[in-house]
């Protein structure tokens, strides 16, 4: 294996890992700030200018807190829960294309850790095992509220995965590829999937909210009913891991929404600017992060606007609301793409 290849992948891995951690850190601050602004408050502003050191203070506080473990907890699984959640949250960033490619010294370096030909399915697999951390942690706490949270998380995840996969399948049908890199590359310029798949987009966004356990779907941690849900018994950095992985999940979900529906690193008129290849890539990455920030903001905006679902409403919405829409969208898309393939619309262009 080429040594430069190894070093470049290593650098990319480290950069993406650190980036997701730092972004998750500052997402906590952004969440509190934005919540403040939505409620005519200021949000945290004491630690550093504009509260910029607040995440550091929060992290330090969590590290200093007492490590508590319930007496009858399953020791190994109790520790495994948050670790698994964190691991799974970080896993899916591997296949997201963070930008085009940089050409340095005649060699092309793609800004994607692993361009596997089943990238979409990989992300989907990672999402589907994401619930294990919550379930294990909730069960191992030996607390009925935690168990209730875990059970809720499991049923919610399974229910919304279906509609989510259906909307992804529609994307796969139109693009004809399971590789995320290919899907993003096909949305070159302004050919974003959101224009051809508006229903799929809405379904995907709603499911993304449910999969990340964010309001209005935060029933697994629902404070008013379940105290803290699956992390009721957790303290110190184990709790920190749970809270932190929620923000990483949010970041990754935003990146997925941006990549699948909003063209990823593509931006309008990218061919007409007359810039060099590397310059386009750098601007593209910046554009991608702007899109991610927008969707992150959307996540928070929704959270501080909508009240929480009731549990039966959640289930009814998932199975009787989203799933039929997703399936209908899939059938319509299949029908139309079949017509296009058979030149049915040729009379329009005549």
């Amino acid at each position, binding site marked *: 294996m080429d040594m430069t290849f190894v070093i470049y992948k290593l650098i990319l891995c480290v950069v993406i890992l650190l980036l997701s951690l730092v972004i998750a850190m500052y997402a906590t601050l952004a969440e509190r700030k934005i919540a403040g602004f939505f409620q005519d408050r200021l949000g945290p502003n004491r630690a550093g200018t504009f509260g910029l050191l607040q995440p550091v203070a929060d992290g330090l506080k969590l590290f200093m807190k007492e490590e508590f473990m319930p007496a009858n907890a*399953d020791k190994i*699984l109790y520790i495994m829960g948050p670790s698994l959640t964190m691991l799974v949250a970080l896993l899916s960033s591997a296949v997201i294309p963070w930008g085009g490619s940089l050409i340095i010294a005649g060699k092309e370096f793609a800004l994607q850790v692993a361009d*596997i*030909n*089943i990238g979409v*399915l*990989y992300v*989907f*697999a990672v*999402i*589907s*095992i994401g*619930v*294990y951390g919550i*379930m*294990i942690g909730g*069960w191992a706490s030996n607390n009925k509220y935690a*168990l209730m949270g*875990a*059970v809720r998380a*499991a*049923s919610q*995840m*399974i229910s919304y*995965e279906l509609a989510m996969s259906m909307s992804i399948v529609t994307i796969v049908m139109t693009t004809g590829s*399971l590789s995320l890199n290919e899907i993003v590359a096909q949305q070159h310029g302004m050919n974003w999937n959101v224009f051809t798949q508006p229903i799929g987009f809405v379904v995907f966004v709603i499911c993304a909210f449910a999969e990340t356990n964010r309001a209005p779907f935060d029933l697994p941690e629902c404070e008013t009913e379940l105290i803290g849900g699956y992390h009721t018994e957790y303290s110190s950095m184990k709790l920190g891991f749970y809270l932190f992985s929620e923000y990483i999940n949010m970041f990754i979900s935003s990146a997925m929404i941006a990549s699948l529906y909003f063209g990823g690193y593509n931006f309008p008129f990218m061919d007409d600017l007359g810039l060099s290849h590397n310059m386009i890539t750098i601007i593209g990455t910046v554009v991608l992060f702007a899109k991610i920030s927008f969707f992150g903001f959307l996540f928070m905006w929704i959270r501080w606007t909508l009240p929480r679902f009731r549990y039966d409403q959640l289930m009814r919405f998932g199975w009787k609301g989203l799933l039929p829409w997703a399936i209908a969208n899939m059938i319509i898309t299949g029908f139309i793409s079949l017509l296009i393939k058979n030149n049915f619309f040729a009379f329009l262009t005549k």
Partner: protein
Amino acid sequence: MLSQYLFFFLSFVAIVSALMVLLSKKPIHSVLYLTLTFFTLAGHYILLNAQFLAVVHIIVYAGAIMVLFLFTVMLLNLNIEGEFQKSTIMKFIAAIGGGMIFLVLIGTLKSFDVATVGNPELTQIGLVKNLGKTLYSDYLLPFELSSILFLSAMVGAVMLGKKDKQ
């Protein structure tokens, strides 16, 4: 040879965790060990260059079925005291049944020609495109039949889940 070491490592973990499924005292641990076994099997698929199968295996088995298992076991809150005692005749029948399946497995493995597998890195059959083409051309009928089977299972589940009108 890296893939060989990986194969031995995965096989070891698979066998140990499969044994632990049977030996664990808590049902939850059994379920989690079973999940681990599925992950190692997915690793084997990747070693055979069948990425699609590996990922689908994780999505379907680890991501959906085992979550449901875990869900059920958590809700039922099974433990050793609650386990009902099986009669001797039941145990006897179970032992005979299990032994016969074991015999069939050994018989199948004995008649199986290992050399036909070929070099996994050269076969591209595990990739999505080839797999899809094979499924929808050579194996179209079994594929459709199994989908009908799934549909009937789904309809049956819905029927069972429906509230009794009376």
